[in-house]
């Protein structure tokens, strides 16, 4: 099924849908900001999947780097310089630095151990955001700041009031990130990651320095997730410690799994479904937590290969 032509057609279709989203989203009962949210979550989930689906490494603590992006943006605009781009830079740098250091500590661990440690480190950052009241606003979050217009020299774009403009900013970031990740996965380096996923021992015995490559994959994954975090902060004009909690990490994983870990666009589909579902459920009932929890259980039991996994199997038979 996955001939080059079908793949190319799917890519084109997806980009078309994304490019024109603000124009058709209202017709299907949504709103532009929801679309932005889907894209941001999709970026986060796809970044996670770079590590999870393509390198075979399970991180359940990615919200930490997402959160660093969120707070990096918020703190920069509020206290340093009211510039969206500066906020992005700070957020991504913070996420990258933390990931680089923590990566060194954990990259030789495997499987369950690795997962547990990522959870624990995720908790560290949540704890910092939650406790450091003076700086982060603690449990109340960081407010009193908002999206700053972007000055291109020849034109200034108001992304605060113009939801469409904001969406296209998000889309631009998404496009660049996704293009880079796709290129990397198609490169010799990307193939070494596949090798590590498929058979670590064999990869080692082909001369691939496994730990080093996992560290690089980890770093790339965290960089793009923190970029998603900066965009998320902009979306809400708010930084919330909840963005760093283990349930946020779990959300990223379920999006990747739901859409299909083994395919490139899987996490985008997973994010779309999950965000829309979450939006709907939380507006309909107090017990949204039970529904989301049940959702996780059902996905694990009945959809472990994800939506695209099912599509692929149907096409192959």
């Amino acid at each position: 099924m996955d001939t080059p032509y079908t793949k190319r057609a799917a890519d084109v279709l997806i980009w078309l849908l994304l490019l024109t989203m603000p124009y058709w989203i209202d017709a299907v009962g949504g709103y532009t900001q929801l679309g932005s949210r889907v894209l941001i979550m999709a970026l986060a989930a796809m970044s996670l999947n770079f590590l999870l689906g393509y390198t075979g490494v399970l991180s359940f603590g990615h919200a930490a780097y997402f959160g660093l992006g969120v707070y990096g943006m918020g703190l920069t605009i509020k206290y340093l310089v009211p510039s969206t781009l500066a906020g992005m830079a700070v957020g991504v740098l913070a996420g990258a630095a933390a990931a680089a250091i923590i990566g060194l500590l954990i990259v030789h661990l495997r499987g369950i151990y690795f997962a547990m440690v990522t959870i624990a480190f995720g908790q560290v950052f949540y704890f910092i955001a939650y406790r450091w009241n003076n700086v982060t606003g603690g449990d109340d979050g960081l407010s009193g700041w908002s999206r700053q217009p972007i000055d291109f020299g020849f034109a200034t774009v108001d992304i605060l009031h113009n939801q469409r403009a904001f969406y296209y900013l998000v889309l631009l970031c998404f496009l660049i990130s996704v293009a880079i990740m796709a290129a990397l996965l198609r490169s010799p380096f990307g193939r070494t990651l596949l090798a590590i996923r498929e058979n670590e021992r064999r990869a080692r015995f082909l001369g691939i320095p496994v730990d080093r490559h996992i560290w690089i994959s980890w770093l790339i994954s965290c960089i793009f997730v923190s970029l998603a975090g900066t965009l998320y902060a902009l979306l809400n004009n708010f930084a919330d410690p909840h963005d760093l909690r283990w349930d946020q990490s779990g959300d990223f994983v379920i999006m990747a799994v739901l859409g299909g870990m083994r395919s490139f666009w899987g996490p985008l589909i997973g994010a779309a479904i999950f965000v829309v579902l979450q939006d709907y459920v939380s507006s309909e009932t107090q017990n949204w937590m039970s529904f989301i929890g049940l959702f996780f259980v059902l996905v694990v039991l009945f959809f472990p290969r994800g939506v695209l996994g099912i599509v692929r199997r149907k096409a192959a038979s």
Partner: protein
Amino acid sequence: MSLLRVENVSKQFGSLIAVNNVSMTVESGELRAIIGPNGAGKTTFFNLISGFLRQTSGRIIFDGEDIGDLLPARRVWRGIARTFQVTEVFPELSVRENLRIPVEVASGMRLRPWLSRSADRTVRARVDELLDMAALAGKAERLVGELAHGDQRATEIMMALALKPRLLLLDEPTAGMGDQETYDITQLILRLHKNAKLTIVLIEHDMRVVFHLADRVTVLDQGHLLAEGAPKEIAANEAVQSAYLGQAA
């Protein structure tokens, strides 16, 4: 100078001595077979040479260099490639992709984030070459995990070959194979030995393969070096016979 010199190597696991003071010298271009009853320590011996395990004592000298402390990936870079008793390949990737990875790694591309057209063409050409050598061209796009055992093994051997090794270690290449597959693999190994002038050491249980391929045979028994010599000598060696018969009884 010999290509591989294993000097008085031992490996101990607690109180169990798996490899006991074994020495072996392999010349460049040789095809050596290691045989011995089950539990003789043959795979452990391979694990020591390839770096999967670290020896308790003794030295391993490859092309004049003491490699005893090097990690497996580094020994690969020095030119030692191996296959495993249970075939280790990348099951959800195609044969072509399986071969492409070691070709790229051997060409120093493992960190390359991008490949130029011409480099891509060179890599593809090399992969096609390897596919033809093993008669796998027709199955190139199939997932390795779905292939027959013999083809999986052939893929694994070609992956090792793709690394352009100077020493190829094959751990029971014909294990679990029927007559036809055994014949095919044996022919493949012979071709590699002749065309690529590769130094090969293989562990084998199938004596037909040993006699067909080996220049010299090393016999291990319960971790000791029992005998070494030309295949005919070994076949006639009484100590070797009783070691095998002792096992059977």
